[in-house]
Structure formats: C-alpha cells, structure tokens
C-alpha cells in the first residue's frame, strides 16, 4: 500500500519534470537554432537529415560586417531607440507628474484617452503620418521614426509614471515646497529620483518597442535610414537561404532584448503588462 503510493509519487514527479523539459525545449529551440546556425559552416546547414553536432566558426559574423550594411542598420536602430527613450521621457514624465499631483476638470477623460492612444494599432496612424512627413520634408529621416515611436511611448510613460508619482508620499514634496522650492524643482529634485523604478521601466520598454518595431520603419524609412529588422529582411529576403549570414544578423538584433529580459526582467514584465505584473 505504502510502496505503491511512493511509486505513484515518483511517477508524478517524473511526468512533471518531463513535461516541463518539453515545454522549455519548445520555447528555446528556435533561439538555440538561430545561435547555433550563425556559428556553423555554410555547408553544414543544409545537410538532411539535419546535423546537430556543432563545429563552430565566426566567419558568418565576419562576412556580414564586411559585406552588408549591418553596421549602419545597428547605428540607425540605436539612434531611433535612444532618441525615442529620451523624447518620451522628456514629454511623458512631467505630464505624468501633472496628472498625479493636480486635479482638474476632465482629468480622468484625458488620461484614459492618452492610454487609448497607446493601444491603438500602428497601421491606422501610419498612412496619414507618412503623408504628413512627406509634406514636412521629413520622409525617410530617422527623426520621422522617432516621432512616431514617441507617440506610443509618451502615452505609455504618462500612464505608467502617473501611477508611480501618485503612490509617492506627498509629504516630501510638500516639505520641499515649504522650503521654497518651485513645483518644477520639487518635481526634478524630489519626485523624479523617487520614481526611478518607473523611469527605468519606461526607458527599457520604450527602447525594446522601438528596437523591435518593423511596420513604422518599413513605412517611413529609405535604404539609408533602414533599421536593423528591416535591414535583415532587405538583405536576406531575396537571398533565399543564406541562413548562416541571416542568423548571424538576427543574433545581432536579438542580443540586446535578450539581455534585458534576463537581467532586468522585473522592469520588462511590468512594462509588458501595462504595470499589471510587478515582477
């Protein structure tokens, strides 16, 4: 009786471990594939049945840096992502503070409208925005992508940070105000440093959103200003099966987001769920 129960327990544990391993393999295999393929010799990739043994080489990375525009794509993506982070915070943080600390007529309506901006589909804004950029002579510039990414990230910053600021104790700022600080100084010197986790969340999330964006880059950039995802598609869309090179370039594109998820998961998750899940 006791023995059969023990066996049942063991079996249950075994099944559990097995199922979890399968789940892990399912989610990690494509990532494993992209990394290992980027390290293979061209000839090894296309053998059927697939080869699993790895005889690593860095020649693919060397090749893409020599023969493609990957450097330029990375630079463009970096400028767009960092520009968006900066602009969204400059616009979003003070506004969030305003929403958190002052009450005025129509505040709730305004704040919910801003949040709706964040969730609306990009394609809806893309067409008119593109015409607007044409008319302003900004079409094809890095700035145009920064501007459009900033819309979403400012809305997000206002939403997330207004929650942060509202939860900070008012007393600290009031003390600063009584000591003669202006609201602006109280915001800058007291509230902003205290809201650092929120700021980090917004920065990380805005960065990843811009870094991973494809549709805006596709609709607004020229070959000179193409971002990394677009660059990968442009370089390898027509090349068919230059997989070792393509995966090498993909590795360049995924390394930053992957580092963020592993090391800054708390912030990333909070951004991904609109502040719903706090690590």
């Amino acid at each position, binding site marked *: 009786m006791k023995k059969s129960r023990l066996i049942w327990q063991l079996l249950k544990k075994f099944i559990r471990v097995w199922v979890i391993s399968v789940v892990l393999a399912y989610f990690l295999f494509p990532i494993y594939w992209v990394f290992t393929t980027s390290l293979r010799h061209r000839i090894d990739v296309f053998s059927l049945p697939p080869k699993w043994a790895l005889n690593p080489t860095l020649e693919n990375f060397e090749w893409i840096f020599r023969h493609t525009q990957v450097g330029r794509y990375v630079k463009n993506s970096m400028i767009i992502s960092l520009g968006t982070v900066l602009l969204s915070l400059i616009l979003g943080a003070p506004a969030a503070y305003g929403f958190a600390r002052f009450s005025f007529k129509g505040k709730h309506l305004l704040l919910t409208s801003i949040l709706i901006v964040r969730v609306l589909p990009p394609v809806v804004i893309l067409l008119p925005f593109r015409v607007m950029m044409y008319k302003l002579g900004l079409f094809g510039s890095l700035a145009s992508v920064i501007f459009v990414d900033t819309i979403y990230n400012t809305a997000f910053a206002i939403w997330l940070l207004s929650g942060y600021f509202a939860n900070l104790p008012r007393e600290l700022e009031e003390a600063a105000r009584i000591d003669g600080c202006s609201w602006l100084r109280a915001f800058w010197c007291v509230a902003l440093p205290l809201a650092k986790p929120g700021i980090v969340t917004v920065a990380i999330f805005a960065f990843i959103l811009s870094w991973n964006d494809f549709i805006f880059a596709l609709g607004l950039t020229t070959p000179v200003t193409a971002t990394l995802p677009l660059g990968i598609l442009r370089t390898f869309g027509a090349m068919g099966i230059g997989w070792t090179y393509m995966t090498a370039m993909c590795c360049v594109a995924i390394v930053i987001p992957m580092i963020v998820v592993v090391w800054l998961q708390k912030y990333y998750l909070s951004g991904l*769920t609109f502040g719903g899940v706090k690590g």
Partner: protein
Amino acid sequence: MCPSPFVQRTKMIEKKTLLMFLVPAILYLTIFYVYPLLYALYISFFDYRLGIETTTFIGIKNYLQALTDHRFIVAVKNTAIFVIGAVAIQLCFGLTLALLLSAETRTMRIIRALILLPTALPPLVVALIWKSLLHPDLGVITYYLRAIGLNIGRGLLEERATALLSIIMIDVWQWTPLVAIILLAGIKSLPQDVFEAGMVDGASWWQLIRYITLPLLRPVIVVATLIRSMDALKIFDSVWAITGGGPGTATTVLNFYIFEQGIQHLKVSYGAAVANYFLAMYIPLGIWFVFLLYFRQHKI
C-alpha cells in the same frame, strides 16, 4: 466669503504650473497623433493618391468600394480567425503553463525567466527564424514532420490549408509565455484559505481548478485576453516577411491589406478608409481594456 487675494494668486500660479507640466505632451500628441487621425478621416472622403496632386471629393465611395472588395472581406475574415485562434490557444496553453510553473523554487524562477525570452525578440526576426525552420525543402521542422510520415504537401507555409495556422502557431510560440506569466501573477494573488477549505471538503485537483481557481481568476483572464487580442489584431510582421499574404489570399490580414493598398499601391484615401473600418472595429476593445485598467488602478 471671498477667497483672499493671496489664495487666488496661489491658485493661478498652480494652474500655470500645471499647464507647464502637461502642455508639451498634450501638444505633441495632438500634433502627431490627433491631427493625422483627423486628416485620415478627411482624406478618406477624397480620391487621393500619393504623388498625384489632384484630389477630388468622392464622398463615401471609398467606404462602399471596400465593402464590395473581395480581398477586404477575406482580410477581415482571416484577421478574425487569426485573433480568435491565436488567443484561444494561448489562453489554454498559458493556463496550463501557469499551473505547471507556479512553484516558488529557484529552478522554477529560472525557467519562468527563460520562457519569457521569445516575447522580447523582434517579431520580424521571429518570423524569419520560423520561415527557415519551416522551409519547404530544407527546414528542420519540415524534415521531421515528413520523417514521421505526415503529408504536409509543399510545406506548411506553402499550402492554403495550413498557412494561416502556421502564422497562428508562430504567434502562439512568441506570446504564450506572456499569457502564462500574467495568469501566474493572478494565481499567486488569490486568497489561500478558499483552497484549504476546498481541500478539507475533499475536492480533487481538477475540482479545485474548475470551481475555485478559474472563477476567481476571471478578471485576470479578461485582462490577459484583452491585451493579447489587441496585440494579435496588429499582426503584420510575420505575414509580411513569410507569406506576403499568400498563398492566394490565405494569410491576407487587415494590417497587411491596409499597408499594401495605402503604401505600396499609394492609394492613400482608400487605405485610410479601410484603416478607419479597422479602427471602428478595434476601438470598443481598446476602450474596454483602458477602462478596466484605469478603474483597477484608480479605483473610481
């Protein structure tokens, strides 16, 4: 009693300060978001193509044209199938994962961190990876599917019957972890005593889930469903990079169709009209989500 001049003065200063905080962001969103949206509405009543300077007023002709456009109807249908299919699978799979990975051990925490990796990758890169894995001749997955004797024709992505399903499965791969983590956070915040009561009453494992966990988890499930549905409606990258809307119209989804018409074919007005249809379908979801989130945070 009249407020003293001093109070009045302070109030004015407060108002000025408030404006200083809010105005830059509001102005920015108005210029770069509200104005383009209104422009899209305006231009959808004209016949405007980028590069051609003449614009003629044609009323609601663009909107009527869309309704008789076979590809638009197919795009709506495909989008609906995609969203419902992807979100439903993600919810079932995500709930299973959440229950499976809920233990608070070190290993589980590491596993939970690892399965979140797909969510951070650029969707376009994910699309290219799966395109290679499912390549009709050389794809690893294609090879093993054939090896176990499945008849997949020219390959999953090349057959009308399986192309949209493949796009759904790619979305499932990338976004199920997010659903799992949201549901997991929900499970963790449930009160423990009801489970203890259930166990004392002799409820089985399945009964606990069916009659306690799921009903209590309903608000979280709604939020997860909304977040994923809104995001799934934006499906574009994988269709663009993998199938180009094909084979035939099998994977032509709304975003793809709007991009193709409005940007590739330069038919700005028609694209805007279709985009406005899309927006009209989308907005109820958006408002529902925002109000849920807002009420939860502000408790008004």
